[in-house]
Structure formats: C-alpha cells, structure tokens
C-alpha cells in the first residue's frame, strides 16, 4: 500500500477495511450468502493515482466515518469481552473457553425473562452479529470509484445482472457453435431445478451488501430464469448454483412415528388433536385388524350422512388398507361433517406408519395429510352474511 503519504492513521484504517472485507466474506451467523463483491472491492484497493497528493472530500469523509466505526466496534468488542468474562465468572466457568451457547444459557439462567417475544428478552451477542457488515470504500483517495458501475448506486447488483447476461450470451454462442457441428446437449447432465429455488430477496441483499427494489429483484429472477432455460445451462452450473437454495421435501418434513405394541401384540398408533372446524378427535389405528371401526363406542353408523361415511373410508381405501386395520376414534365438538373430517385426517396421519414412503407421498398429493384450516367466515355488519349484501334499491 502506497498510502504512506497520508500517515500511519490511513494505513491502519485501510487495514481495517481489509479486515472488514474478510468479515464480509465469512459472515459470523451462518448466513449462506458469501459476499465476494464486497471483498473484491477492497482487494483491488491499490489506487492507480498514488502519486497524487490531494485527498478528495468524499474520501476524507469516508475515512472519518470508517475511523469512527472502527473505534466504536473496538469499544463494543471490549465491552462484549468484559460481559462475557462476568458471565463466565458468575457461572464458575473458564472465560477463555466460554462460547456463545454458554452465554445464551447463562443469560437464560441468570436473567430469566417472562417476555413472550424472544427478541425482547435479554441477550449478549458479538458486535459483529449485532451491527451488520458495511461496505468498504468504493473509491480511491482521489475520489475515483473502483467500480465502473459505481454511479448506478448499486454496483454489485448491476454487475451481477451483467454477469448473468454474459453467461447467457456465452451459452447461446456455444449452442450455436455446437448446433452447426450437429452436436446436441447432453440430456443426462441436464440441470435439475425441481428441488431448488432462486435466492429470496433478503438473502440476495445480504449477498450483495446492497438493498434492492422489488422490480430489481424481479429483473434478477427473470434473467436467471432465462439463463437456466438454456439447454446448455449445465455448463454454467457453478455460476447458477451460487444463487440457488435447496428446498425441503414436503413429505419428509413430518417425521413418521414408530408404531407401538399393545397387549394383544398388535401394532398401534394414536394420533391426538385431530382438528377440523370445531371438532376434535383422537384416532387410534391398529394393524393388523379386520376393518372394525368404532367411533365413540358406535360403529360407522355413528354418522347418518352418506358423505361422512365416505370421508371416513377415503384414506383407508386410498392406501388399500381397508379391512386390514382397526380404527378407534373419540370425537367431540362440531357437526357431523367436521367430525368426519377430523377423523379422516387422524386416520390418514396414523396410516403413514403402516405404508411405504411412496404411498405417503401419494397421500400427500391427494391432500389427505394437510390439515384443513378453513373455518366459518364471520358475518359482517352492514351485510346480510359473510359476503351477501342487503337488498338495496336506490329508487
């Protein structure tokens, strides 16, 4: 660094800039986004116009701000260390090996809080987590910006768009060249996008260290989709993967309980709190069985409605276990339709333990494993019902 001209102070602050950049590239709190752009900015910090004596106003203001921030962070770090030490002493532990988890535990033990919101409870965290990373200087001491897109106000974002388009054009060129040669894209290497989604807006913002507008985010998604739609998208897999987030398998999200064994040596599963409308049921499914159904001590004729009986049998028939399991249910509250719906959900949830993963997924797709949260819509004042308006005639 040839910033010697300006005295030690500047060199130090520039070193701090570098440090900041490192912090950005490895964010402390498990964010998956890495910020290569922000660090790039400082890496190329060797200014072109070194010999110039004049420091621009912008740079001076920036350096002042950066210094202040550094001082502030330093005191914060000191305070954090002291606080940590106090906590460790109170807990009788070694302050050097006291981790963040120990801190959280100590605080919840020493300062128990009845506040509902977790954010409102007392906490002690590293200042790096509390005060988010800032962008390092984007211009040299003469005020000349490093980035060609500095004056867009969001250089990292527009650079990203630029990169995406460059990648797309590269793939288009490749496609044309290979087409002329008569080659076809490899079907086996095709990008599988089903289990992924593009980075959501807030995570992209963390990645870029810039806040972007909704329309800009939609520009990003559109250009990414155009890139992914290319038949040779697998060639820029590493680029695309940086902006993808894996999705969880829906049917694997809920853990399937292991069946218990009753006195007769049969497997059984009890599902509590089966809710639908205002009905509530507990459902026990026993396997192997003979297809016996008992609801509040009665058999399936507990329901007079044909529709309700059909609903009860729906999951059993769907999973082909009709006549192979016994069902016992206790149900209260609500009307017949709600009760039947509650028991249906309970049976479906319990049956997961007796069928294979493929059938579970099939049942999920049929909508049997989703809890039906729909409730009666309230009547509104000034209206005859939930939606219907009073008859009104002007004249």
């Amino acid at each position, binding site marked *: 660094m040839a910033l010697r001209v300006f005295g030690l102070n500047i060199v130090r602050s520039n070193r701090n800039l570098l440090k900041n950049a490192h912090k950005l590239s490895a964010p402390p709190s498990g964010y998956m986004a890495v910020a290569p752009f922000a660090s790039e900015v400082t890496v190329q910090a060797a200014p072109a116009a070194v010999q110039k004596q004049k420091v621009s106003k912008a740079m001076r203001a920036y350096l002042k701000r950066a210094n202040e921030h550094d001082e502030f962070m330093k005191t914060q770090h000191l305070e954090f260390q002291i606080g940590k030490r106090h906590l460790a002493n109170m807990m009788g532990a070694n302050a050097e090996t006291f981790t963040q988890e120990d801190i959280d535990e100590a605080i919840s033990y020493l300062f128990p809080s009845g506040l509902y919101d977790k954010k409102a409870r007392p906490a002690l965290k590293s200042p790096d987590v509390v005060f988010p990373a800032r962008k390092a200087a984007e211009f040299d001491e003469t005020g000349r910006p490093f980035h060609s897109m500095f004056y867009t106000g969001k250089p990292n974002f527009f650079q990203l768009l630029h990169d995406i388009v460059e990648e797309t054009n590269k793939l288009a060129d490749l496609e044309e060249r290979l087409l002329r040669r008569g080659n076809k894209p490899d079907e086996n290497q095709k990008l599988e996008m089903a*289990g992924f989604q593009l980075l959501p807006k807030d995570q992209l913002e963390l990645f870029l260290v810039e806040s972007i507008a909704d329309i800009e985010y939609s520009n990003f998604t559109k250009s990414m989709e155009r890139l992914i739609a290319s038949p040779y998208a697998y060639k820029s897999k590493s680029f695309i993967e940086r902006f993808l987030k894996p999705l969880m398998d829906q049917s694997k999200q809920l853990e399937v309980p292991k069946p218990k064994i009753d006195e007769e040596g049969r497997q059984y599963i009890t599902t509590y709190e089966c809710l639908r409308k205002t009905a509530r049921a507990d459902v026990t499914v026993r396997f192997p069985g003979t297809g016996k159904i008992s609801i509040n001590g009665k058999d399936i004729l507990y329901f007079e409605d044909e529709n309700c009986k059909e609903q009860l049998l729906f999951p059993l028939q769907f999973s082909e276990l009709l006549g192979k399991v016994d069902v016992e249910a206790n149900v209260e509250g609500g009307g017949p*339709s709600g009760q039947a719906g509650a028991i*249906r959900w309970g049976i479906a949830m319990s049956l997961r333990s007796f069928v294979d993963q493929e059938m579970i*997924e099939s049942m999920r797709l*049929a909508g049997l494993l989703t809890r039906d949260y729909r409730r009666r819509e309230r009547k509104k004042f000034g209206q005859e019902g939930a939606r219907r308006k009073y008859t009104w005639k002007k004249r």
Partner: protein
Amino acid sequence: MSFLSIIAGKTSKYSSLRLMSVYPTQYVEPIVQKDKQNEQKTELSKLYHVPIKAAVNKSSDTVFHDDTKEKMINYITKKGNSALARTLLSKTFELIKRTQTEHMNLAKGEKNAINTNAETLLKQAVENCRPLLQVTAIKRGGVTYQVPVPITTRRSYFLAMKWLLDAAREKERKVSLPEKLAWEILDAAHGQGRVVKRKDDLHRQCESNRAYAHYRWS
C-alpha cells in the same frame, strides 16, 4: 408457479382461483384420483417441494365419485341441505335406470344400443344443453342492443345444469322433483326436450342479433 398450476390446478374442469383463501398462494390443488396421479407421474416430481391443499370433504377416490354429479348435487341443494339433494339425485338416477332398463327390455333387437347408465346419461344431457354464446344488453346511444357474446366453458356448464334444474322445478305439485328431473335428463340426453330447445332458442337469438356483435368492443 404457473407450470405447477397447469399440472395440479386443472384437476377439475370446474376449478378456478379463489380469492381470500386461507391457503397461501404457493399451495396447489390436490390430485385426489389415483389414476390421475399415475397419469402424470413424471411431472409429479415437481410437486415434491410444493405444499398441497387439503382434500375437500366431498372428494373421494371411489368409482362412485363423479365431478358432474357432485356439481349437480350442489345446484340442487337448497339452504345447505346437501344430504337431501344427494338422495334426490340418487332417486333421479334410479328412475332413469328403471325407464332405460324398461326400454331395453321392450326393444326388439339392438338391446345394447340403449344406454342404461344414468351417470353417462346425465353427462350426455349436460353436454347437449351447453350453450356457446349468450346475449347481453349493451346500451349504445340510448338504445339497448342485445349483443351476442361468447361464454366461458365454466359458465356454459353452469347454464346447462341450471336450465336442466329450472325445467325440472317447473312442474305440478304432485310430481316429485326426481321424476321430472329424470324426464328432462333423458330428453336432453337424446337431444330433445325443453332444455335443448332453450339452448337452440338462445343460439337463434344470437344469430339474429349478429349485426350488433361489434358493440361488444366498439
């Protein structure tokens, strides 16, 4: 989410987007029938990561389930008494079955030509009664014109079923609804009767007002 709605959303020809739903927008309609799931097996892998709405309490995967039938029950229902509507429709089907079987037994030769399946007869009747166009009143220069406009598939099914039911409800007090509805369905299934005539009348009216068709947009 558009491609997903194509796979999952169009499970029923009557389905449409519901506003003010309790389900967030990423939820898609369930595919209740197992046959349909097997048909689209390759596309279903896209749904692994998508949450599914709960199956409504009218749906089921039995051979007795039929979309047209369920819709008809909904239209027959008065004041939420769908159990009664169900029995009325099953009585209707019974009557249709009886008459058709009688016809079949009385017929000389070609006994298989007579359809005795009440559900397919209902579907046939609804298809025969579906209008393509309707007229709406549009005011231009102080004069109201009857302007023919095309209607959506959904609405055409609605009108067909409504007309069938209107015709069935227009009866003597002594005649029961299932009896009259059975007659109307049988008539319409054979391309005759009041409902098909009503459709033809509407089409004729549209045809005679074709000169005003441009008022739809000008």
